């Protein structure tokens, strides 16, 4: 009997010692695993020129101002392109968790544009595992440049072009994210009958975090239409740059062979070639304002 009570006493010792760990285990047993959504796959709603999977959260207004300067190979007289500036600004707003809209204006062909971005799937781990995030982007652009020939009948619809994109992204780890972007562009009016009204392209982009607030980004679009039959030589756009994040601002500094900053432009109207030095320096500035607390 004495041995028994001794044994009993000893058996109590570990209970007393690990009491707090026990409580922690008890806690873990009683809590259900949650869905852990991946955040910040990209730092901004653009990888470089094209949209990223990221969306403005509800109630947040993103004011964006972007510039692309002239070609670097234009020489010292043009100050390596900096004498010319092509700009685009836009107001973009998150309406719902899965819905974002934006309107913008670009100086290239005096174009107005608008887009809607829908979030379909969000990458997650934990209680629900989803390997990728998927969004759909639809945009429309209105070229307001005066018609070169005022005597012929010019239709309003001829000013419009449309873009549909599926954005599929995965944050592979803390510092590396990739995105694939199958894209379709429809232009109501093209320059000559050699030029197709419909363009098919696929974009690939990625981001590598260098520090907590700095990342290296690259983006490439492959245009599937045969380009040699087009009236103007068109090349695949490649953009390389960095994201710098400073609290409320994101600065993107980049080099690209495309002059325009909206989808229908950089997919279908990139006439520069990296190999020839037709490279534009440019930047995007994004400033987010909270209009409504979430």
């Amino acid at each position, binding site marked *: 009997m004495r041995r028994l009570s001794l044994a009993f006493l000893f058996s109590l010792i570990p209970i007393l010692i690990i009491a*707090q760990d026990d409580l922690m285990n008890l*806690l873990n047993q009683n809590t259900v695993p949650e869905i852990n959504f991946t955040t910040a796959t990209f730092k901004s709603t653009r990888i470089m020129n094209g949209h990223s999977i990221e969306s403005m959260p509800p109630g947040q207004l993103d004011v964006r101002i972007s510039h692309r300067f002239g070609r670097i190979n234009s020489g010292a007289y043009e100050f390596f392109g900096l004498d010319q500036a092509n700009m685009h600004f836009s107001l973009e707003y998150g309406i719902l968790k899965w819905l974002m809209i934006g309107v913008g204006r670009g100086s290239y062909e005096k174009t107005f544009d608008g887009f809607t971005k829908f979030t379909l799937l969000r990458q997650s781990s934990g209680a629900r595992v989803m390997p990728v995030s998927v969004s759909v982007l639809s945009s429309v652009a209105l070229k307001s440049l005066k018609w070169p020939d005022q005597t012929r009948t010019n239709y309003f619809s001829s000013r419009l072009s449309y873009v549909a994109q599926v954005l599929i992204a995965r944050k592979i780890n803390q510092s590396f994210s990739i995105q694939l972007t199958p894209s379709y562009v429809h232009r109501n009016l093209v320059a000559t009958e050699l030029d197709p009204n419909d363009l098919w392209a696929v974009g690939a982009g990625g981001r590598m975090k260098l520090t907590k607030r700095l990342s290296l980004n690259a983006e490439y679009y492959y245009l599937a239409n045969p380009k040699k039959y087009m009236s103007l030589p068109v090349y695949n756009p490649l953009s390389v740059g960095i994201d710098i994040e400073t609290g409320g601002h994101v600065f993107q500094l980049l080099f690209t062979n495309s002059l325009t900053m909206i989808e229908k432009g950089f997919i279908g109207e990139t006439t520069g070639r990296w190999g020839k030095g037709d490279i534009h320096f440019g930047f995007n500035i994004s400033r987010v304002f909270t209009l409504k607390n979430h």
Partner: protein
Amino acid sequence: MKRLFLLLFFLNIFFAVNAQKYMTKNGFIGFFSHTPMEDIKGDNNQVAGVLDISTGDMVFQALIKSFHFDRALMEEHFNENYMESDKFPKSSFKGKITNLSSVNFSKNGTYDVTVEGDLTIHDVTNKISSKGTVEVVSGGINASSKFNIVPEDYKINIPGVVREKINKNLEVTVKMKYENLH
């Protein structure tokens, strides 16, 4: 007979032990930083905690991603740049009420307590001590406390550019409504 005695003894302890435990899954932990430039407030209403009134042991656990802010961008920065919540998804506290004898758990009322223990944030553990209150109510126990923490103690770096927007001392508020765990 001996065996029966033993069995009764263990059963007795088992029940006695569990009856002493109180738990919550939706406790509150919030932090607040005030500077002339900006106020920052993060609230988490899904904190899990257990209190053992027989020993005074208490533990909390909070998911970092469950801290919510008025501004979505702040929440992203909190997770991405400061807490690195993908690497360190949880914060926890393991501690003890040191003056357990001054609380009468069988009588409703509010009692002042001191809690000491290990607070783990951002995978860094520090000993903390804080004053708080325990309120015994019918069917449960409410506990609350307020204390300050210094982000640098937990290897959370605040860069120079935002230094003026984040107070060096963050005020942390803990409010728990425990229910008896049967």
